């Protein structure tokens, strides 16, 4: 009966739990948005473990070149390239995007806007299935003959197109296939998010009553949709170059490798904001709740986010300053790139200003959210060096770049992900996590994180290039070796502390105290239903209505310091 969850079927079937004793297949076939969110979440986490293991292997090689890495063996240069390539691809496309956008987007949007599901549940399911398939394909690409693709996640041709150059024809084709499949999955998911937010809001919920995280995920989905198209076309061309032997990117045959770079970064830069904005949204929700504060300037923040999104389409060529584009274009892109620092600075200022006058409780989710702001600022300011064309001549493709974008992506994907997970864990599973374990895990992750990437900033300033599997050939960089070791040791410490996270999750699931409906005394609609919410989210005749904005904390007219959105005035 549970199979009848499709929207065209009778209403009574939908009351059945979609997962039950019918086994894994039934679970995969569920159309419930919460189930699909969990699927995305746990697939993303599993992929994060894969990506983390890769980081461990190639950092070991970076620090102790040529030694056998425990659990892997001696790293060859081909394996090294495949590891860094797939670490990057997996962490962005199979960890950051599914966790931040797909998992929390799926989980939160219907709950926060008071709907019983996404507007296209079956499309949602198809989106996850395509995503799962793409994850399997990328994993398969690592073990096929010739090894995984090793042309970096940017996959610049002609290295990525000619088997004679990259020596991994099968790995390269599977890689581009997996990425294209993943794009299609997120296009379907994105259409669903956008239409759900536009159309399925609870009665009374006006545009400015929508919780910020929903806005952010939807803005991100729109950015993704409008930027990924050219790259899908580009991926088709790249695939044809590989598989059929066309010459779209082959200079000897009338093609142009620069074209791919443009197609890639036209998507690649907005992509940064595609993952950034949901993380910002998550952090805003958490800060508002634990500072018991109304957001400082809801509209201001929303417009800033939109402005960031629009500007993000105008900056892509700053990744290509020295990649052979006309140097005159670099001037234009320097200006636009530095312009984008204005809305980003504004976003940070507004987040900080929200703390003013609050009553801040440092719970585990709040610690994650605050550390996001602190760490992301480092990522933000170091971006200026790279956006300014003059200094990018020196910093391009050094470890400085690497450290910079890890200071943006790590706060976004890992800190943002943990913040969201710890904050909504009570809602998702109905039990609380352990605060002490959570804090041990927090400090054990964030402190080593800084010790990984601050040394790498310095090696970058010292001239270390990225993607070099062994510095033995560069005697001029030999004095930086201790810093590389330091970064690797910090990584090992950080990976070790993840045990506390899994311990905490298992403890929370089995022994955690019951959470109740609203453990954080928060305003938004997801806290007005049971934890975990039943199928359909609310009983049919108790669907919520909305009377006010989501951040009415500490309202002077009320004794309680919070005022849920659905309480009649």
């Amino acid at each position, binding site marked *: 009966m549970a199979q009848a969850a499709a929207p065209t079927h009778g209403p009574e079937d939908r009351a059945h739990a979609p997962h039950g004793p019918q086994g894994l297949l039934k679970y995969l076939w569920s159309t419930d948005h919460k189930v699909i969110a969990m699927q995305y979440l746990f697939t993303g986490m599993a992929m994060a473990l894969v990506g983390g293991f890769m980081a461990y292997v190639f950092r070991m090689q970076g620090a102790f070149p040529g030694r056998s890495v425990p659990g892997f063996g001696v790293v*060859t*240069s081909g394996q090294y390239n495949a590891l860094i390539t797939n670490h990057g691809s997996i962490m962005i496309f199979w960890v950051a995007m599914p966790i931040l956008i797909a998992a929390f987007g799926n989980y939160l949007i219907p709950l926060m806007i008071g709907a019983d599901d996404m507007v296209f549940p079956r499309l949602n399911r198809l989106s996850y299935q395509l995503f799962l398939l793409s994850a399997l394909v990328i994993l398969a690409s690592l073990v096929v003959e*010739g090894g995984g693709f090793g042309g970096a996640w940017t996959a610049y041709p002609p290295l990525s197109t000619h088997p*004679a150059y990259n*020596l991994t024809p099968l790995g390269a084709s599977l890689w581009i296939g997996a990425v294209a499949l993943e794009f299609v999955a997120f296009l379907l998911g994105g259409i669903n998010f956008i239409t759900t937010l536009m159309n399925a809001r609870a009665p009374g919920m006006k545009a400015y009553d929508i919780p910020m995280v929903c806005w952010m995920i939807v803005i991100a989905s729109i950015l993704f949709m409008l930027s990924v198209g050219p790259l899908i076309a580009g991926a088709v061309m790249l695939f044809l170059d590989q598989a059929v032997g066309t010459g779209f990117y082959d*200079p*000897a045959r009338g093609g142009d490798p620069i*074209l791919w770079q443009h197609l890639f970064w036209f998507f690649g830069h907005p992509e940064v904001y595609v993952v950034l904005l949901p993380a910002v949204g998550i952090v805003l929700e958490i800060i508002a709740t634990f500072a018991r504060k109304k957001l400082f300037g809801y509209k201001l923040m929303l417009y800033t986010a939109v402005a960031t999104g629009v500007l993000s389409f105008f900056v892509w060529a700053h990744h290509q300053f020295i990649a052979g584009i006309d140097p005159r274009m670099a001037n234009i892109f320097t200006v636009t790139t530095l312009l984008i620092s204005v809305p980003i600075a504004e976003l940070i200022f507004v987040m900080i200003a929200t703390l003013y006058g609050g009553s801040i409780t440092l719970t585990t989710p709040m610690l994650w959210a605050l550390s996001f702001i602190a760490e992301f600022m480092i990522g933000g300011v170091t971006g200026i060096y790279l956006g300014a064309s003059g200094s990018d001549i020196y910093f391009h493709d050094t470890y400085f770049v690497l450290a910079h974008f890890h200071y943006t992506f790590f706060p976004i994907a890992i800190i943002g992900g943990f913040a969201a997970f710890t904050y909504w864990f009570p809602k998702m599973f109905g039990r609380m996590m352990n605060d002490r374990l959570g804090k041990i895990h927090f400090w054990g992750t964030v402190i080593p994180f800084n010790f990984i990437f601050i040394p790498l900033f310095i090696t970058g300033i010292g001239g270390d290039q990225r993607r070099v599997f062994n510095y033995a050939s560069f005697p001029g960089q030999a004095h930086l070796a201790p810093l590389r070791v330091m970064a690797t040791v910090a990584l090992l410490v950080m990976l070790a502390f993840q045990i506390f996270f899994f311990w905490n999750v298992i403890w929370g699931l089995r022994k955690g105290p019951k959470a109740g409906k609203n453990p954080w005394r928060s305003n938004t609609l997801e806290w007005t239903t049971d934890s975990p919410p039943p199928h359909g989210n609310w009983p049919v005749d108790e669907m919520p209505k909305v009377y006010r904005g989501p951040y009415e904390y500490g309202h002077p007219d009320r004794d309680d310091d919070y005022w849920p959105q659905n309480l009649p005035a």
Partner: protein
Amino acid sequence: MTESRHPDYRKIYFVLLALLVISVAGPFVGIRWITLITAFGIAVVKARLVVQNFMHLKWEKRIVKWMLASSLALMALFFTAVAPDVMKHSGRNWVNDAALAATQRGIAAPGAEGGREGAAAEPAAGAVVVAAAGFDARAAFSTICASCHGAAGGGDGPGASGLSPKPAKFSDPAFWAGKTDAELLKAIREGGAAVGRSATMPAWGSLYDEAQARALLAFVKTLARP
């Protein structure tokens, strides 16, 4: 379902057909700018008619128009910013030699049958290959091979440390036992995998022709120690 208006579709259809006839007839006038107008100007008009009336965009809410307009605007942006690099073949301090050469070839030989398979023999990758002033096998070895196989063929080049299986040791007599020239040439030109050895040995056939590979092999043989 919302009420949407229905114009006289038959009229629009006939206008579209008339426009189609004009756009096909345009090139027969033989004037370039007229062709451009009849081809692309009319395409825009036709598309507009279809989108406005058949797709009912005329009666749709404003937000939909904004959506479509912004995707079109983004494509215009993309074109404007990329064209200086891809459409142009030279710029400040750079020249796209390969594209210029291709254009010149194509214009010099318009009878090249519009790119029929095999009609135009394209040169190998990189039309700007160094002038091959006599092939120097020793230089080629130190350039290409020594990074893994070692300067003296000891299999101990800087790249060897990370490789598994290890690169061949040319100095080791055991390597030469039972090897034929044909097999070694194949390995040089088609890569190690072609002869069932390490796949990390790349194929150099795009860089060295048969004769050059032979010269290279002759040099490599001098590295063998008795």
